[in-house]
């Protein structure tokens, strides 16, 4: 049972990755702090309901993501966006060009992605979560997650390639 998990140990283990995930989505320090804190607050009141202690990490990330979506839905109603087909050939930014961007720029480009791609791509790069874990956290079928990751990564690289200094860095295509 997960209610045996020591709260302080849990915070020590997960507050950093949770904050990083929150910040990658919200791009706002106070909001990311609140999301992280709220996640642990929900754990304190509902965490005992989790039967499998090995699912704690997934549970925490799922909860944080839900909280984020809940806040965003209150702020604005997102239009339903159909997934566009991934273009067969997309520009790929060079590693050197990526290195010239700072984290804020990369996150700003991440925010330009369709909402369905943002959380998967963030978890993909931040946490080294397996595809299964990402699917579990976001509660989306594995095949869908792979498809979203593929499109999200292509799109992110395309956006980074289009940034100043980017276009001439387009060096190859898929």
């Amino acid at each position, binding site marked *: 049972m997960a209610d045996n998990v020591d*709260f*302080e140990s849990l*915070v*020590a283990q997960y*507050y*950093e990755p949770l*904050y*990083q995930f929150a*910040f*990658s989505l919200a791009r706002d*320090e*106070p909001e990311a*702090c*609140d999301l*992280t*804190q709220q996640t*642990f*607050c929900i754990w*304190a009141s509902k965490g005992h309901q989790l039967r499998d202690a090995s699912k704690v990490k997934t549970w925490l990330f799922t909860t944080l993501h839900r909280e984020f979506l809940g806040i965003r839905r209150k702020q604005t109603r997102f239009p339903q966006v159909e997934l566009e087909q991934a273009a067969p050939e997309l520009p*790929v*930014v*060079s*590693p050197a060009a*990526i*290195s010239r*961007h*700072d*984290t804020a720029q*990369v*996150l700003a480009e991440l925010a330009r992605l369709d909402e369905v791609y943002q959380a998967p791509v*963030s978890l*993909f*790069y*931040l946490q*080294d979560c*397996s*595809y299964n874990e990402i699917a579990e956290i976001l509660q989306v079928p594995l095949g869908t997650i*792979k498809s979203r*990751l*593929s499109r999200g*990564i*292509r799109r*992110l*690289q395309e956006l980074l390639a289009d940034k100043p200094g980017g276009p001439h860095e387009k*060096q*190859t295509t*898929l």
Partner: protein
Amino acid sequence: MSINEAKTTLLLYRPGTADAEDPQIAAALALAKSDPELAHWLEDHCARQEALRVKFRQITVPAGLKEQIISEQAVLRRRIYWRPRIALGAVAAVALLAFLAAFWRSYPPGDDTLAIYQNQMVRIALSGYGMDLATDDHTKIRSYLAQNRAPADYVLPTALQKAAVTGCAIEGWQAVKVSMICFRTGRPLPPNQSSDLWLFVVDRASLKDAPENSQPRFAVVKGLATVAWSQGDKVYLLGTEADEATIRKFL
């Protein structure tokens, strides 16, 4: 599997992770070993992935967040613990007494740490407060605080003395009174807001881990830039909605 299919599959490949155990990725990696063009593309791809991972991991966590989460939870736990007891005491007079007691003693003994004090004062600043006295006159503020037995003999940093004062309020902490003096940093404020810089002064004895000296201790609490220090028998906590650079100008 064609070269293009392999590239599409490997787009999800992160070197150094368990991704290579995925059968499709394993097949694409095997193909890369025998195809120089794909191998060259893979090398670039891995460098791109690593560069992006580095960018994501450069997100830094604010100092004190862990302590803030733990201290907030400790407070919440105690509140939850007390809730049923209060419910049992349904008699109106008892409830009223409990309320009055809780007003001045929001936290049970043991919660007298600087972190919890900071959190409680920041919450007051952020969640809206009523100024007991609205004035731009420091003398009137000191007089009002002294009359109400709140800390009034505080020492303002030289720079803070020059800031525009807008009034004061008296708050509670561990059964002692806290003087809250409101200032303006000079930044434009929303129409309904009169202050964006707040100084809280409390007796040093009310905090078991009060700062040892006047060396400022900076922390971001709930998005508010704060600095705490001790001087004489008082602990000072200054907070602002602006950033740390701004708060330093008032020290």
